[in-house]
């Protein structure tokens, strides 16, 4: 293996010397590796990270939550329900086949078949190839989220997959899960699942303006956080993610390594089930809980500053972010509200939390339970691994349940669709609303925001929803989980990282 790698690097050096400058090898470690090489099999961070290496999206998010053209050179809105994308000319897949509008249409149709992605693409009624480089998308109504959705279109090589086998298999083997032909900056050279994946730079990559100089990228999944950190500190790997909160200082202070952190977009919340516990049906009790929980304290003490205190679902930068809403910790006020609601003597409630899903999840719940004891709410807390937790969550098995949410569309409406709209088994809305919170106004505004194409009006609607949720204490917002990456000095990860946590490794520069 080693000789092979050396040879590859040497060969790459000669290729690279002609063009871009010295080729580099990147050894990087994540906590897991993607389930599959099929970008449509599972909607998860791991899959998308892989997709950004091996495939290329039509457009992609930039650091300011705007869109950068990738395989789509430009786009124009023809009318309220039609969007036209113009594709880059002369792009080829890893197999050598040229990428055309046909491939894009085929990819979109495949996405609509994928159990994980079909929800996102439900509003796209048709995709048509007008000519080799133009794709026209029609939506079922006016849609403000066409571009958000287009970031999920990673064109796949139609001819390659149709020959090998194109079906999406969630369990069991498939051609697409083991073989890939995209247009991306890297080609998968070898893959031993759960152990090592080796990527080689695509010699025919279309983006010749990319400063990236990584010739070989080797992904080693390292599940155990201390081992991952040790691998970076020992110099065995150049780049790791995620960095656990306990090791932030160590990586920052250590000579030769650096730390990059960002405010994340995953909101951590507690939901109060009004159907299970009648006390929670009274908004004053919910407000009392919001006042009783010191989320600033949780971020400081438990998260060691590795989080951003939240008072709403939408993080800053999202359209629905309402700057007027601020955290409210006030025990006296909480006690007064409890008294007003007729619960001066308190009551008891059950609570369930996962213990390996979110950063410090169970510690947060323990702290919250202790804080609620101060307003005489006696909490019976159960924590469990996520594998057991999710079935319990589906059963709505406790009065208070923890859930963290990251909006797949990077849009505020998504939080409401899943977390705060009235649960409805037929439409799937409110699927993760274990609190059974229901407010027609929230439902109405959220649905309206999904067809409103005027950005200003849309922002006003979504911000109003946040205000209602805040006033009624529909749920207890805790914090947005921060993101952290560690790297060796000279590996310029800060230039390719973003809040979605898709490092654009194709553009990564490693200095000599």
């Amino acid at each position, binding site marked *: *293996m*080693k000789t092979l790698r050396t040879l590859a690097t040497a060969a790459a050096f000669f290729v690279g010397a002609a063009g871009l400058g010295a080729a580099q090898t990147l050894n990087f470690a994540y906590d897991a590796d993607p*389930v*599959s090489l099929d970008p449509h099999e*599972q*909607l*998860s961070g791991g899959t998308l990270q892989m997709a950004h290496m091996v495939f290329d999206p039509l457009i992609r998010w930039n650091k300011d939550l705007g869109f950068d053209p990738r395989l789509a050179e430009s786009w124009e809105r023809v009318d309220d329900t039609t969007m036209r994308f113009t594709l880059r000319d002369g792009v080829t897949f890893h197999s050598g086949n040229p990428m055309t509008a046909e491939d894009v249409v085929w990819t979109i149709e495949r996405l609509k078949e994928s*159990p*994980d992605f079909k*929800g*996102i693409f439900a509003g796209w009624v048709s995709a048509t190839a007008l000519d080799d480089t133009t794709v026209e998308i029609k939506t079922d109504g006016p849609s403000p989220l066409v571009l958000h959705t287009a970031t999920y279109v990673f064109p796949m090589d139609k001819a390659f997959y149709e020959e090998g086998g194109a079906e999406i*298999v*969630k*369990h*069991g*083997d*498939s051609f697409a*899960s083991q073989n890939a032909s995209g247009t991306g900056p890297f080609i998968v050279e070898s893959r*031993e*699942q*759960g*152990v*090592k994946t080796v990527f080689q730079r695509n010699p025919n990559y279309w983006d010749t303006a990319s400063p990236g100089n990584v010739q070989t990228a080797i992904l*080693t999944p*390292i*599940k*155990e956080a*201390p*081992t991952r950190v*040790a*691998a970076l*500190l*020992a*110099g*065995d790997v150049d780049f790791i993610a995620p960095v656990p909160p306990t090791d932030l200082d160590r990586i920052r202070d250590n000579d030769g390594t650096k730390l990059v952190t960002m405010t994340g977009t995953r909101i951590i919340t507690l939901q109060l089930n009004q159907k299970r516990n009648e006390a929670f049906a009274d908004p004053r009790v919910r407000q009392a809980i919001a006042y009783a929980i010191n989320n600033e304290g949780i971020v400081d003490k438990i998260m060691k500053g590795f989080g951003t205190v939240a008072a709403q679902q939408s993080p800053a930068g999202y359209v629905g972010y309402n700057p007027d809403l601020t955290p409210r910790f006030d025990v006296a006020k909480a006690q007064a509200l409890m008294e007003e609601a007729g619960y001066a003597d308190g009551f008891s409630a059950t609570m369930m939390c996962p213990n*390996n899903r979110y950063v410090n999840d169970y510690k947060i719940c323990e702290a919250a339970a202790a804080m609620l004891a101060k307003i005489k709410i006696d909490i019976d807390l159960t924590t469990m*691994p*996520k*594998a*057991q*937790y*999710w*079935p319990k969550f*589906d059963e709505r098995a406790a009065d208070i349940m923890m859930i963290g*949410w*990251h909006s*797949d569309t990077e849009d505020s409406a998504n939080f409401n669709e*899943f977390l705060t709209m009235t649960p409805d*088994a037929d439409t*799937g809305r409110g*699927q*993760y609303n274990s609190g059974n919170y229901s407010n027609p106004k929230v439902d109405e505004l959220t649905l309206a925001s999904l067809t409103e194409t005027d950005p200003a009006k849309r922002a006003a609607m979504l911000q109003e929803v946040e205000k209602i949720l805040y006033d009624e204490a529909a749920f207890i917002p805790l914090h947005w989980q921060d993101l952290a990456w560690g790297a060796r000095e000279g590996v310029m990860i800060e230039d390719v990282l973003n809040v979605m946590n898709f490092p654009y490794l194709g553009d990564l520069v490693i200095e000599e």
Partner: protein
Amino acid sequence: MHILAFLIRRAAQAMVVMFVISIIGFSIQDNLGDPLRELVGQSVSEAEREALRDELGLNDPFLVQYARFLGNAVQGDLGTSYFFKRPAIEVILDKFPATFELVLGAVFIFVSVSIPAGIYCAIHRDSWLSRIIMTGSIVGISIPVFLTAIFMVWLFGVELGWLPAFGRGDTVTLPWGWDTGFLTWDGISHLILPSITLSSIMLPLFIRLIRAEMLEAMGTDYVRFARAKGLSTWRVRYVHAFRNTLLPVVTVGGLMIGTLIAYTILTETVFQWPGMGFLFLEAVNRVDTPLIIAYIIVVGLIFVVVNTIVDFIYTLINPMVKLPGAKG
């Protein structure tokens, strides 16, 4: 002939053991969590998940599921891993060489350290070195293995930077498909920390055991008689006395294989060693039930095989011992 009878009997026992294990494994699988959650993204609807669950046959009654499993199992198919999307047994066998070499490394270390140390401590009971070894072994026995592991990573991997702290390094594929790390320096250097860690659980115990057995043997009549006969001290100690300490050591060693397998799970996880133990813990985290059940069945088989080998070794060490169940 009696060896054959013994083997047949053992094979029958192995079948029973694995059958029982499979029932236990199967009946706990519902408590391991919902595998669907690990297969799909967060926004997939409940109806969609239900349809997948049906497709996987997870909604069938227990007996139907078990009968189906058993039917496939007798044909050598223990199910398909949800994560690896390959037959579970194949995935496990792929990881077997890594675990086997790790265990071999650990056994090599504790045999080559515990035998000399145990004998030394028995013969030079009151020397200062014996005291250090005996005190050290008490400390060693009381440190949990994951602490040893993390300490090793920190000291040799990070602070001193002498040895790699994760993975298996470069391996060479032998003609029969076995990936070995023994043939490259990189592979061996990766093996050092994990195998020291793994041996650290057994080492103190074996030093104490060998010392105690050796002390006892040195006081027996036949040793005193051998001395009286004028045999050399060397011969008395290492041939007569030592050989008789081996029987209990092998017995305990055989029993400890189970412990060793259990500890490979911890050791492999900390060192990211791509073996069966690491695979198992990951499978539990991902609720990869077919892989979990296949693993415990394979481990059950390893137990039976190891104990059979231990019984054979008995007869080699002490010809007076008969193979269990064989008529002499």
